[in-house]
């Protein structure tokens, strides 16, 4: 039932996204939404609307009851999705549905290890690959636990994208970068998603530091809330990731019972469009 994805290998969709952005002398826009939020049908409609609105890479959240690194907005999004019956199996089906009409936009699943562990690592990787998943970000799997999922994912042809943080010093960076693929996600603050706004100068310096250790694109996320932030970050990074702001735009569009309205899909797509303009406004005239 899942469409056979032609030719390009999984990580190629990620590198192609960054290559296209680079050709336009701009940073890539990486957008995060929670799968199945506020319900599976609306979640799929949002997913389908993202590329046209300007998303270069889609991060799709896998709902979990206990998201230790997420702030209140994404916690609530996960609970909305779970309340509507979302599961990891359904999230993979959402990716497969997306791939029926789009084999160009890279999809990265983001979440926590327990649902994957319970699903079964080998079975998960096989199903994720068949569905058309390009990469994984699993917050609670540091390099010390690479044998759990990172190495099997790489063997299965799925990129394992690592988070680097302000606490990842030069001594530790090689450990963090060793088995990472696709891109490096720089967490611009010490903290949870959607918390403080980063210091953009410090962020640019951190990106430059990471780039001394790797040829992979570096995406900056956590705390990017609007087009102005996106433009500021875009000047010093290969990509800008936005999550909480989109999840909040979605939440604000819901009715009093937390159900989707006709405003829900446009609310998310509209903000993505603004962010895409922000990223483009920061197009680098002087990039080597």
């Amino acid at each position, binding site marked *: 039932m899942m469409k056979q994805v032609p030719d390009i290998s999984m990580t190629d969709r990620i590198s192609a996204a960054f290559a296209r952005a680079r050709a336009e002398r701009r940073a890539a826009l990486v957008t995060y939404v929670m799968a199945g939020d506020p319900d599976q049908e609306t979640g799929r409609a949002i997913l389908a609307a993202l590329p046209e609105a300007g998303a270069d890479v889609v991060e799709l959240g896998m*709902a*979990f*009851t*206990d*998201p*230790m*690194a997420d*702030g*209140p907005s994404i*916690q609530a999004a996960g*609970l909305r999705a*779970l309340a509507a019956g979302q*599961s*990891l*199996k359904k999230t993979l089906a959402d990716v497969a549905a997306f791939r029926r009409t789009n084999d160009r936009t890279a999809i990265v699943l983001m979440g*926590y*290890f*327990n*649902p*994957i*562990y*319970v*699903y079964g690592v080998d079975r998960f990787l096989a199903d994720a690959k068949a569905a058309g998943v390009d990469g994984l970000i699993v*917050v*609670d*799997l*540091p*390099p*010390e*636990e690479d044998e759990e999922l990172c190495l099997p994912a790489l063997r299965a042809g799925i990129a394992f994208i*690592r*988070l*680097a*943080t*302000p*606490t*990842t*010093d030069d001594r*530790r960076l090689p450990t*963090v970068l060793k088995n990472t693929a696709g891109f490096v996600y720089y*967490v611009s*603050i*010490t*903290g*949870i998603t959607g*918390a403080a706004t980063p210091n953009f100068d410090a962020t640019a310096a951190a990106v430059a530091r990471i780039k001394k250790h790797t040829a992979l694109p570096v995406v900056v996320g956590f705390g990017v809330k609007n087009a102005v932030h996106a433009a500021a970050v875009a000047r010093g990074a290969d990509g800008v990731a936005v999550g909480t702001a989109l999840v909040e735009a979605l939440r604000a569009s819901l009715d009093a019972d937390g159900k989707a309205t006709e405003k829900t899909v446009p609310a998310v797509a509209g903000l993505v469009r603004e962010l895409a303009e922000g990223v483009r406004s920061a197009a680098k005239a002087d990039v080597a």
Partner: protein
Amino acid sequence: MNSPVRPNSLRAGPDETGHFGMFGGRFVAETLMPLILDLEKAYGEAKDDPSYQAEMASMMTHYIGRPSPLYFAERMTDKLGGAKIYFKREELNHTGAHKVNNVLGQILLARRMGKKRIIAETGAGQHGVATATLCARYGLECIVYMGAVDVERQKPNVFRMQLLGAKVVPVQSGSKTLKDAMNEALRDWVTNVADTFYCIGTVAGPHPYPMMVRDFQSVIGKETREQMLAAEGRLPDSLIAAVGGGSNAMGLFHPFLDDSDVEIYGVEAAGHGLTSLHAASIAGGRPGVLHGNRTYLLMNEDGQIQDAHSISAGLDYPGIGPEHSWLHDIKRAQYVSITDEESLEGFKLCCELEGIVPALESAHAVAYAMKLAPRKAKDHLMVINLSGRGDKDIFTVAEHLGGM
């Protein structure tokens, strides 16, 4: 008093990556990983430092009031008509529970590491009170995360923490109990990495916490060995302790793991029963990954964590320390369960026969002894860890027994 740890000893764990068999590990966000490595290093150095050990020993004696007595529960023994029952009186410690043993070790470590801000999670409030106490004693800032549901049902402890100068933060996320308090403490730690020490209250979390907390709590079992040898001239035949996360149990069990003749019973909370709402992770759960470690967890088929239930807030957690999961898998310890109703019978028996008001957590251990002791011979030596006193629980008990 302990025999040296042999190469094939059951006391040798965890391995250098923090695993007890397949359990344990370091499943944390990258932001925390350098902090956990620092902590492991600092603890390793402290452990070998005589000045650290001396300060701990002195505080154990003069501040906490150790050793805690090993008390022959004569009337309970007569009533149950089998095993000779002893209580390890951890409820007599300063702050009224075993929790303080671990907090002392961690706070002295935090001081060595130059950390001025202490965060903790708490369920029943006993760990929160112990942390607030040591923070007051050493002049450290203290923030305690506590599920909003627990704040309501353990009010006396909330007030105690506040009197001791701690800031109690009611956690409104998720199920608003201990697991959510732990999530929120981790969120705080990931945000305040430079100056903050996370004082975990049980033998769970990422390595090195399960090992470190066990080491600090092992004073319970070490004393029990010496005291039983002094009282009876031999080791006990069985040990019984309640298990939520499992720190009082691990503290009692660990020094006896290589004594294969000593039967070990961990008592999980069966709540309304194992087919209903409960907190028995081993009896009713399966291996998963949460809060930094792999261990038995209560969860659904999608790996979503389920809410635990126990009459005792301190046992109301959907997981268990990873070393317990391992001891279960290798069958060194038996994990049994006791319902809310049964624990109330244990609570009453302890009050009425021994004049000791036990914590509802400890009442679970007593309730299991009520089942086991009558089946044992009169020369069977049984130790129940009376891990905490029950002042905090009298309103909960009154509500159930209709005493007020």
